[in-house]
């Protein structure tokens, strides 16, 4: 390629920068991308999907915002609301637009805005087209849950299907189903891969193994131990109930799946709509657990690439300064008492942790050797990082790699907010006592199963009035917010067609603390 002259395999120093003007052009994008790709593959050892870069206007960027960052989406008023919201913020100047949006598909689609300068386009390509891209292709959650090859086709099917339904059944009817399904979309994902269907040969083999094990460990003495006597009829009833539950696949935490398959009064097209919402939700499921790592990975990669480009003289000092200015505002972390504070900035923490891992690998302190004996001083920072990118999610990544130094640098502290007490209490700060606790508490904060309520379908009153019974298993007495809970239950009732009941159950003691009931909808 054209730029091989500048960038030999031995990292030759370039005789001139790839670009000097601030305006971008298509040829320039291509040249820069090739240089970036080369560094990423040959030096950082990254492995990513092919890239398609799409240049868009700010208005199109707003469109993309509205459809939650996907290039196509079915029609629904909530996307219009999102658009109106972002448009107003943007026009008032309260909010800048993202420089890029990247879509986890194969090939990866990377939107870049026409307003960006050439330096920003370089940064964006290093960040999204390479950084995010590598993460998408390699992280286990994406590999397990996201069908990068099929997502765009599926979305286009979804859009057309919803449009057809609107034509056939009226926009209002479709809207009602989508509204209701959207209310439950966070609970429309599979969190575990499906149980494999029982396979006869496999079952036989396992039965054989069990028998062999029983034979090998047989001891006649157990025969003499008296058994607890259980009343016959009770076990019968329990058995029967358990059987019914098993047939229904209960308990089921994917509420939308259960409703789609089991709701008695839905038409086929309504089930298909629910399925669409479920699939889209499932597509975003890994993303919610990987925000910190995804942004951290992309930020770390762009920082590394930009520096390497600069070291070789491929970008000018001016560009480098422009980049550093932008980079430092991206990784800015205001303190908790700062008016700009809105939680931990995933770019900041992710980037800092990954840079820290690099430091631990290359230049460890005594403390690092004690905390990270396996990687401290190993020298292969990128190997360690690639391993982390592939095999961790936010929660486990923090649990594994948050170092005391990071806790000191961010001055993290843990506060316990007990609603029965008048004030909150500081539980741990950045000291020897606190490192371990803070690390654990922060990891928990990123754990989706802690952040989102654990709601399951536990039973359906099949012999009675077909009431759908949901349970919210809570920890630490954190209950559901009442108003929204009722609203969501109303939606659930609409889909289910009969009464819906939700019990808030303490996961430790199994006591029911609170029960919501929504009566069956009136029959027309």
């Amino acid at each position, binding site marked *: 390629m054209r730029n091989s002259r500048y960038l030999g395999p031995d990292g030759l120093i370039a005789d001139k920068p790839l670009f000097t003007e601030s305006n971008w052009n298509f040829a320039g994008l291509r040249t820069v991308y090739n240089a970036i790709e080369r560094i990423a593959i040959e030096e950082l050892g990254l492995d990513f999907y092919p890239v398609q870069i799409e240049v868009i206007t700010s208005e199109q960027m707003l469109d993309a915002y509205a459809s939650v960052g996907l290039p196509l989406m079915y029609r629904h008023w909530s996307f219009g609301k999102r658009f109106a919201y972002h*448009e107003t913020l943007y026009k008032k100047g309260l909010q800048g637009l993202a420089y890029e949006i990247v879509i986890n598909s194969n090939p990866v689609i990377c939107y870049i805005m026409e307003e960006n300068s050439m330096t920003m386009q370089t940064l964006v390509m290093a960040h999204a087209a390479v950084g995010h891209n590598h993460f998408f292709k390699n992280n286990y959650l994406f590999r397990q849950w996201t069908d990068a090859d099929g997502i765009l086709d599926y979305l286009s099917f979804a859009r057309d299907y919803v449009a057809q339904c609107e034509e056939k059944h009226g926009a209002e009817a479709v809207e009602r189903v989508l509204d209701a399904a959207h*209310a439950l979309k966070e609970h429309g994902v599979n969190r575990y891969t499906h149980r494999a269907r029982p396979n006869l040969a496999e079952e036989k083999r396992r039965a054989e193994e069990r028998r062999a094990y029983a034979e090998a460990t047989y001891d006649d003495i157990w025969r003499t131990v008296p058994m607890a006597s259980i009343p016959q009829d009770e076990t019968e009833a329990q058995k029967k109930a358990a059987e019914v539950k098993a047939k229904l696949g209960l308990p089921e935490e994917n509420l939308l799946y259960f409703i789609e398959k089991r709701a008695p009064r839905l038409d086929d097209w309504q089930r298909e709509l629910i399925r669409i919402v479920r699939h889209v939700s499932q597509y975003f499921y890994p993303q919610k657990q990987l925000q910190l790592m995804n942004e951290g990975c992309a930020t770390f990669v762009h920082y590394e690439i930009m520096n390497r480009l600069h070291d070789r003289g491929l970008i000018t000092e001016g560009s480098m300064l422009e980049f550093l200015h932008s980079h430092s505002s991206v990784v800015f972390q205001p303190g908790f008492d700062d008016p700009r504070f809105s*939680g931990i900035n995933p770019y900041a923490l992710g980037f800092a942790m990954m840079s820290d891992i690099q430091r631990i690998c290359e230049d460890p302190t005594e403390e690092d050797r004690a905390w990270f004996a396996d990687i401290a001083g190993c020298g292969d920072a990128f190997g360690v990082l690639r391993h982390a990118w592939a095999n961790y999610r936010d929660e486990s990544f923090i649990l594994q790699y948050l170092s005391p130094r990071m806790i000191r640098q961010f001055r993290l502290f*843990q506060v316990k*907010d007990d609603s029965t007490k008048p004030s909150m209490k*500081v539980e741990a*700060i950045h000291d020897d006592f606190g490192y371990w606790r803070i690390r654990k508490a*922060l990891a*928990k904060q990123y754990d989706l199963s802690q952040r989102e309520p654990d709601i399951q379908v536990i039973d359906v009153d099949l012999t009675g009035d077909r009431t759908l019974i949901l349970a919210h298993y809570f920890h630490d007495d954190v*209950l559901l917010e009442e108003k929204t809970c009722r609203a969501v239950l109303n939606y659930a009732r609409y889909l289910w067609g009969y009464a819906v009941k939700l019990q808030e159950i303490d996961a430790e003691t199994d006591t029911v603390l609170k029960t919501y009931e929504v009566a069956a909808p009136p029959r027309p």
Partner: protein
Amino acid sequence: MHIVDRRPNPKGKSLSNRQRFLARARIEVKGAVQDALRKRKVADVANGEKVTIPTRGITEPIFHHSRRTGRIDHVVPGNKEYVRGDEIPRPNGGEGRGGSEGSPDGGGEDAFEFTLSKEEFLDMFFEDLELPDLVKKSLKDTTTVDLQRAGYTITGSPSNLSVPRTMRNSMARRIALRRPRLPELEELRQLLEEANEACNETEANRLIGQLNALEGRIKIIPFIDTMDLRYRRFDRIPRPNTEAVMFCLMDVSGSMTEAMKDLAKRFFMLLHMFLVRRYRHVDIVFIRHTSTAEEVDEEAFFYSRETGGTVVSTALEKMVEIAKAHYPSDRWNIYGAQASDGDNYGADSSRCASLLGGEVLPLCQYFAYIEVGNGLSSAGLSGLSRDSDLWKAYSEVAPAHGHFAMRRVGDPAQIFSVFHELFAKGGVRA
């Protein structure tokens, strides 16, 4: 790597979602529009409007944890002074929790703000209003004729020729009949020349034969045949008479204060906007009066200062005169709106009433009388305050004429509700 330039892609991808959203938030948006109207100036009534609506009808609820129950651990950055065991007062509205970000609607209970376009704004604004007696007029009247596109036809005037359609047909026919293309001829001529140069006579003759055949074919199969021609077709759609004239009558004598004039102006502006949306063409005639009446332009109507007595009947006479001269009622929809503070020269009021009942109302589709007060008297209190002479006189005319309405307005905030009352679909009229 591919680079795709998406910038030329069609815009407005979110438009249909936006319409859905507006339809969804209709009630809230309408309320906001009416609120907005009370606050803004008449001159920019027709601009787009930033509206703020409560999130009630447009929330997207999901299950989430309550912030007021249980024990929750927060890990946050930026510790400056705290040590283990410190007690921190609970901040209002809940500590910003690490990891959780503001919801897209700006956080639960807040109002939701966005901007309506001018069209959207006016749609909402006039949504359930209608012009009285619009139908009666259009049935009675000669209708005008409108042209509307209605596909294509094989005959028509040259100015309606549809070139793309014609060329499409022509091309299909040429391909089907294998009309030789010019490059083919060129090629043959080239070969012929070469053959001539090489003195290859048999070859030349063969080529000449071929060439003649092709040229003959070209002559037989024309480039554009009459059967290819397509013309744009228009249907003539009868439309009701869509011309209206609006008479604005106002007392500008000394007793009318600026505030009263402002009220009157707001009313006239609303009426004008409303008419413009219903009729293709709306003429406005401004008639101001003191003890005499004259037709003036808008500027003079609203802003010039006059002094003198008050004889209302002169304005009504003027209106009848102008209507008869320029706006025959069989061709024009005539609307009248009169604003006054109710003062009139003693004996004139009864004359006004007879003029109104006898001459003006038979001409008009609708006539509204707005009595503007100084902010103290309002429509609701009309029973308590003293009725003006004009009001009394008009009250006698009103019951006999369904298309006459009278209202009192005390302050700008009432303008919209009065207007709304007057034109509400199937609404009551005084």
